[in-house]
């Protein structure tokens, strides 16, 4: 009887194998058709494509050697960039935590709050930082405030979603024990939820700070402060050697940020 069952399973499995292969071919075919359509239909002047390597290398040549003058203002702009990322990350925490609390299934007060929380997270995550920046520049004018708000509005979704998942994954048993002592809702959170999500919280915030440093380097391109403002200015004036210096400065900044985050991660967690 056991043999028969396994033989049956064998047959079924074979059929799936064939179906799987068919699906594979179909996927390949569809992919090729889509690529063909994209290549044929896209609005590209093909001679430019063949010329692109030349153009790129000539731009590279114009950038060399990097122009170290103006390094002072570049460093200042970098510091401003870091301020934007740091302040925005700090401020985000105050908004993202309550949102993650209402967006986690096991802590949300009621269904309306759950959906409100999820709506906030989804809309925050779906709009890119630079689009948020565009909006805030239109509202508050060019400057660092628009940048801080843009980074914040994007980070709320990121931190909130991951924190919500961390809250949903906690061990239920301490919660039950705290409820059994007659603790109020807030005390249960303070004792049974907070300690459990602490490590995740630090990891998520550090990760997002690292991402935010990268993101805040481009805010200036739409006028929202930071190094991007200088970069845009240098490009507009065709000051390519200065552009090269700024690019190198950005790489250094990002690498420093990565080094700091890896140290922090090891220290805190």
């Amino acid at each position, binding site marked *: 009887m056991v043999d028969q069952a396994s033989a049956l399973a064998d047959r079924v499995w074979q059929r799936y194998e064939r179906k799987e292969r068919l699906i594979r071919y179909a996927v390949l075919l569809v992919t090729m058709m*889509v*690529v063909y359509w*994209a*290549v044929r*239909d*896209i*609005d*590209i*002047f093909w001679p*430019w*494509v063949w*010329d*692109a390597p030349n*153009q*790129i290398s*000539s*731009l590279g040549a114009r950038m060399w050697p990097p122009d170290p003058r103006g390094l002072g203002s570049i460093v200042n702009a970098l*510091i*401003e960039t870091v*301020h*934007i990322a*740091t*302040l925005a990350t700090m401020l985000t925490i105050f908004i993202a935590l309550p949102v993650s609390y209402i967006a986690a299934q096991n802590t949300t007060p009621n269904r309306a709050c759950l959906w409100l929380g999820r709506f906030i997270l*989804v*809309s925050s995550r*779906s*709009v*890119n930082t*630079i*689009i948020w920046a*565009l*909006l805030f520049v*239109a*509202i*508050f*004018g*060019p*400057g*660092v*405030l628009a940048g801080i708000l843009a980074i914040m509005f994007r980070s709320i979704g990121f931190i909130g979603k991951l924190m919500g998942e961390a809250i949903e994954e906690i061990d239920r048993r301490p919660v039950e024990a705290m409820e059994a002592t007659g603790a109020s809702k807030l005390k249960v959170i303070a004792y049974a939820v907070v300690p459990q999500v602490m490590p995740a919280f630090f990891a998520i915030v550090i990760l997002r700070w690292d991402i935010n440093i*990268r*993101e805040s*380097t*481009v805010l200036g*391109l*739409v006028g929202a*402060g930071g190094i*991007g403002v200088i*970069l*845009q200015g240098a*490009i507009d004036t065709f000051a390519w050697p200065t*552009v090269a210096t700024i*690019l190198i400065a*950005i*790489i250094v900044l*990002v*690498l420093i940020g990565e080094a700091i985050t890896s140290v922090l991660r090891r220290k805190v967690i």
Partner: protein
Amino acid sequence: MTRSDIPGTHPGPRTWRKPPFIASPLLRYGLWLMVVIYLIWAFATLPFNWDRIADGLPRAARIFGGGFPPSFERGGLLLTGFKESFQIAILATLLGVMLSIPFAVMAAKNVVPKPIYYFGRSVIIVSRSFHPVIVAILFVAAVGFGPLAGILTLTVYSIGFVGKLLAEEIEEIDWGQVEAMKATGAGYFSILVYAVFPQILPRQVGLSMYQLDSNLRASAVVGIVGAGGIGGTLMNAFGRYDYDFAFAILLIIIAVILVSEGISGWVRKKIW
């Protein structure tokens, strides 16, 4: 501060304080002080234009007032923009995923000699350090406005992301298979093809789906600096104070991203 005496030998009332997270008080208060100093420094040096910011509320009212209801009247423009974004994302994913393989091999410590490893690694580090929008600006400057700059940008972006994860994957492969191939006397490239690639292929397929999704997101953004796609349309709408059209674009972007995230997640779950 903390109790260390043996039970029963203790006279008088006992106290207990939570042992602090950071044991050294100097470091503990020092950290707080540093945070405070940092905040003061940051707020003091950042150039806030308060007059202009104070102007924000009426402007926000005007923008949101002008933005609702979103206008889908210029549907044709919307469609062209999205079509171009899709095309950019698809072609860049294809190019990026293909190119990421050689770069990943170069950036994997265990399969290439040191100098090549450093080269591959730095290519990946550089392409990861730059936000796609910065890369886009440079490509726009080099090859002009339009989707070509977008494709190049997102190709670089894909190489950085997929290449890094793939290189890590190669560094963790089961070395036994490689040794088995070496024992048969296979050459370097046959070893790569027969012993290394099969081990990273499933991961590569999943990563490609993920990358297609994030390229689609990014393609909406690189257009803002002129690299083609819906981002350019959005930027124009904002520039011309067409807030109702801009909000329509935003809504569609959100919808497309949600759908694409759903599909990509579903496919990855199916594959893994």
